């Protein structure tokens, strides 16, 4: 039922997922493969799967689809809970949660299934988005993925009926890929894809461009959800609106703005508190130019002498480059002088 309370509850759950995700990703480290980071090809493969999988699901019996999602949710739960409680307890908790959801569905406790399913979806979203972010998914990748999903959602949900048919297929089954606060044929809910993008962008934006970008991303996402709900409430929009057709361009625009402001994205290792790059040779040409100018002033030295030059002073000299450096060190200079022969 489309009530203000239901919309508010859904907004609250989405906001909670986004905020918890930001905190989780900052505090816990998910296991990752020894070698490999998220790349453009991963985004391409995921985009292809997003297009292909729903078609496959529609061709499968509903219980089989439910089982497939049950397995995916189980694996994701294990992944997300591992850093919180440890490997074996995480497996036990995942088994318990999945079994409880399945059991409640079999026993016909619809409300319990709704609550458990929403909890599972929230944990899965936090785990998966954290994994993507911590394996180096860039803001550019997310923007490209969001743009692709926007086009897909336009056709699958906005212009076509694939999403509606899929929702009808999984209705009443556990592990439906929905963060729902009501049951029924037209629930107050957000799809798993919507939730993933709503949580992913603030996380990756925080990593790439800082906390402000993350909070702006979160606010934009939740604001758009509220706007859409207002559309539903006022009858401007029909139910089953293709939300990613709105969120995708919003993420793309944010990405372009932040890239314009900050330029290069921050490396994942820096976001996770790793050390700054050991070597910084930025401004090298300017510094060498200044040193070359300074070296010209050393006209009182014999020809062929090697001089060690700082930006604005000749520090030491020697018969070879190395000895000039050594003389500079003995003179108390600890930097890296430019050394040239006169």
């Amino acid at each position, binding site marked *: 039922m489309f009530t203000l309370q239901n919309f508010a509850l859904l907004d609250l759950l989405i906001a909670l997922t986004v905020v918890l995700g930001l905190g989780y990703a900052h505090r816990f480290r998910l*296991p*990752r*493969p*020894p*070698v*490999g*980071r*998220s*790349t453009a*090809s*991963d985004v391409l*493969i995921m985009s292809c799967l997003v297009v292909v999988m729903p078609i496959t699901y529609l061709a499968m019996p509903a219980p089989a689809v439910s089982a497939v999602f049950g397995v995916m949710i189980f694996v994701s739960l294990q992944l997300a809970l591992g850093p919180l409680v440890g490997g074996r307890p995480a497996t036990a908790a995942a088994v318990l949660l999945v079994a409880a959801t399945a059991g409640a569905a079999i026993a016909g406790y619809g409300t319990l299934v709704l609550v458990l399913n929403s909890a599972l979806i929230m944990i899965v979203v936090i785990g998966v988005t954290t994994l993507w972010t*911590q*394996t*180096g998914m860039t803001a550019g990748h997310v923007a490209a993925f969001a743009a692709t999903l926007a086009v897909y959602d336009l056709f699958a949900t906005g212009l076509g009926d694939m999403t509606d048919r899929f929702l009808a297929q999984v209705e009443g089954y556990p592990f439906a890929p929905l963060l729902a606060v009501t049951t029924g044929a037209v629930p107050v809910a957000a799809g798993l894809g919507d939730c993933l993008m709503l949580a992913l962008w603030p996380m990756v934006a925080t990593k790439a461009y800082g906390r402000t970008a993350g909070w702006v991303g979160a606010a934009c996402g939740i604001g758009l959800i509220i706007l859409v709900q207002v559309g539903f409430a006022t009858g401007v929009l029909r139910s089953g609106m293709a939300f990613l057709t709105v969120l995708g361009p919003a993420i793309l625009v944010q990405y372009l703005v932040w890239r314009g402001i900050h330029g290069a994205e921050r*490396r*994942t*290792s820096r976001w*996770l508190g*790793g*050390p700054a*790059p*050991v*070597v910084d*040779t930025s401004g*090298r040409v300017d510094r*060498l130019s200044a040193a070359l100018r300074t070296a010209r002033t050393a006209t009182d030295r014999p020809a062929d002498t090697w001089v060690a030059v700082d930006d604005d002073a000749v520090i030491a000299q020697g*018969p*070879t*480059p*190395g*000895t000039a*450096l*050594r003389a500079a*060190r003995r003179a108390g200079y*600890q930097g*890296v*002088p*430019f*050394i040239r022969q006169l």
Partner: protein
Amino acid sequence: MLATAARQLRYVATVLRGGRFDVDALRKMVTDLRQTLDELGEPGDGADEMLPGSGVDDPEIRRAMADRRLRQAIRQAAEHTAYYRLWFEEHGVDPARIGLDQLHQVASTPKSALRGAGPAFISDRSEPVLMAQTTGTTGTPTVVWFSRYELELSAVLSAISYLMVGGVREHHVSMSCVSSRATVGLISVQRALGLVGAGFVAQGLVDPGIALDRLATPLHLPGKAPHITDLYTVPSYLGALVQRAEQDGWQAGDFGLRQILTGAEILTDALRERVREVFDVPVSDVYGMTELVPTTGLVCARQHLHLASEQAHFEVLDRAADTPAAVGEIGELVATPYAPYRDTTLLVRYRTGDLVRRLPDEPYGCELAQLPATSPIVGRAKHFTGGPTARDILEVLQGVREVPLPTRYALSGDPLKPDLHVVAPEGVLGRIEDLATARSLQVADIVLVDEARDLPEPCRVRADLYEHSFETSRS
């Protein structure tokens, strides 16, 4: 990440199967590794399992893999090389029946056989492209031919090892002070560092003053460290560098070194300590020889020489017979490089000429415990007479600061308790004798001489492969 995972699975499958590697795929793995390190700082969990010799803990599985690789290596050698085809025919041994448990039926291959009949060891199915000559001090070089596959595989495996174990990154710059004729090693290092994106300077064995000057000179290169960071050399030349640095007043702060890697000669604890005082960096002792490329070994913190058992089968045999040396005894290191790593010069039970002590079969308790180990190299079979080992002697002599580096000595008289002749200044005899007594060095007498030419027989070290340069050292 998904494509990377597929490549890793393929690599692991090849290692387990013992098949020929796809070098292009391995090269892409190096790129994957670089991208991972660039974005994420460090490899993920389980990265060490990608290294040769790692990832399989079960001794039975390890043994089964070794058996399969050994059978493959012996079959190829017997089918495609003249030397081994003839040996198996003449001795009536069926190569197809030779595995780990039957290996003792095959005679070891002396170094002299390879040195005297190199082409007989080259597979007729190979495409030799590079002839490498050993640069040892025995007088006659041993010739080993390599294919492009072998060279590229060696480079790419080295690159993976540099990134995962050596901590080499794009901003590092390495300098090689080894003989310029150590072709295969230089090519492999240069290609490997190129794959890593690190810098490389092939300095050669020039006047140590020139090398020190090069190490101290700031580079000012984009994206690179201010100074040369890694030094590859041989211990005798490292000794010469230490000696020269001490003489000319160089200090650690004049350089930007982070590590030194040595090999091909004995690195003593005494020299390691003097290197630490001058350069203030750790020294790694790496084992390798032209005949066994790309197989290597590494001396761990507990002074075990760990050998890459995934790339070759190693044995420690009695110096005079093809029987295993007893635990704790000195024996000769014997190697059979496995087929996936070698397709040109094929060797079975090759006597390396390097002497080691066989360690007891018990847990090594070190960071490389999963790899088989021996003691570090204690000397060369050719020079060992049953008395003190070269390592024992060098530990004593290099522990006395006044004995010039590189250390030069010779033995004469009773092989079991010889006279030790040392190039050293007058006045240090007492200190050498004290240290020799403290370390129970079994020598009859210690005789000091002024010059190397005064020794009863020549003492050649790799630092003698001196390369002339028009560059002058004026430090």
